[in-house]
């Protein structure tokens, strides 16, 4: 993963950057499989590696495939990245040790879900039971987010096209 990130930073051909991004997503998906989060791994492979690569390729079709040369040295972004990265690493120091059964997140509602989900929902996959049943409101919110994102893209991109058509029509009528 480190190699792909360095490749993304070094490469100036945006086509190569998009492909490396897809490879990075697939590596991330394998990491998630190793962590036993198969549902998340599937989503990462489908959305991160598949959909976003396709959409970025479609965007590359509309723009140039070479990176624009930098006008000034990227000092401030580098500083911000180092600061946020440092803060995040500092935050992980306070996290409880990985995978211990008495960690806070394993003592709250998780035992209840694990013990009762099969009886109450007849669904052997606890992830699905939690997502669709116990946390139905959250999932409804997620669907609403996807819905509004799709509607937003449709409105933004379709309206511009309509305006172009109007301009073309006006041009014709003036002639």
């Amino acid at each position, binding site marked *: 993963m480190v190699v792909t990130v360095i490749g993304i930073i070094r490469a100036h051909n945006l086509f190569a950057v998009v492909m490396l991004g897809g490879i990075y997503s697939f590596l991330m998906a394998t990491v998630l499989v190793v962590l036993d989060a198969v549902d998340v791994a*599937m989503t990462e492979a*489908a959305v991160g590696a598949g959909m976003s690569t396709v959409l970025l390729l479609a965007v590359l079709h509309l723009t140039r495939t070479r990176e624009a040369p930098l006008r000034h040295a990227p000092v401030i972004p580098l500083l911000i990245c180092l600061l946020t990265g440092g803060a995040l690493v500092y935050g992980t120091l306070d996290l409880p040790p990985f995978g211990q059964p008495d960690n806070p997140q394993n003592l709250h509602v998780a035992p209840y879900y694990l013990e009762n989900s099969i009886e*109450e929902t007849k669904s052997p996959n606890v*992830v*699905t039971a939690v997502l669709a049943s116990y946390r139905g409101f959250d999932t409804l919110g997620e669907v609403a987010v996807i819905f509004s994102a*799709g509607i937003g893209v449709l409105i933004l*991109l379709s309206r511009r096209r309509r305006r172009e058509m109007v301009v073309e029509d006006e041009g014709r009528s003036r002639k």
Partner: protein
Amino acid sequence: MRDTVILRVVVKVLLPAILMFALYVQFHGEYGPGGGFQAGVAAAAAVILYGMVFGIAEARKVVPRSIVNTMIPLGVLIFAGTGVVSILLGENYLDYTPLGSKPAKGQHLGILVVEFGVFVTVASTMLAIFYVFGGRADEADEKAKNEEGGE
């Protein structure tokens, strides 16, 4: 790229497998990994693959834009409507227990219906975004061709 025989044949062989996998992930989601979201993306990917190899116009013939545009809110309505049904049956919003003869059966049915709602919205949103972007790319191509012809 669109005239490659190998691509066309391979895509034709792959398409049913991808669609079957999407349906498997959708309806097997309670037993194995997966669910509406992953299945929706997989189904959309199948149509997008078809569109990339055979041209977006062909993909639009298979799944017209009007269907896609109605499917986006339809999925949300299925999800939210399930909650309304459980209110009408005298339970809390999004509590699926009254949907079946036994509470567990109701939960089972509720999860299936809700996951289907997620599937519909996700698949159609992905497709809609692809259509819009791809349509702009096609327009850009046509413009470039027209300009070349004009010169």
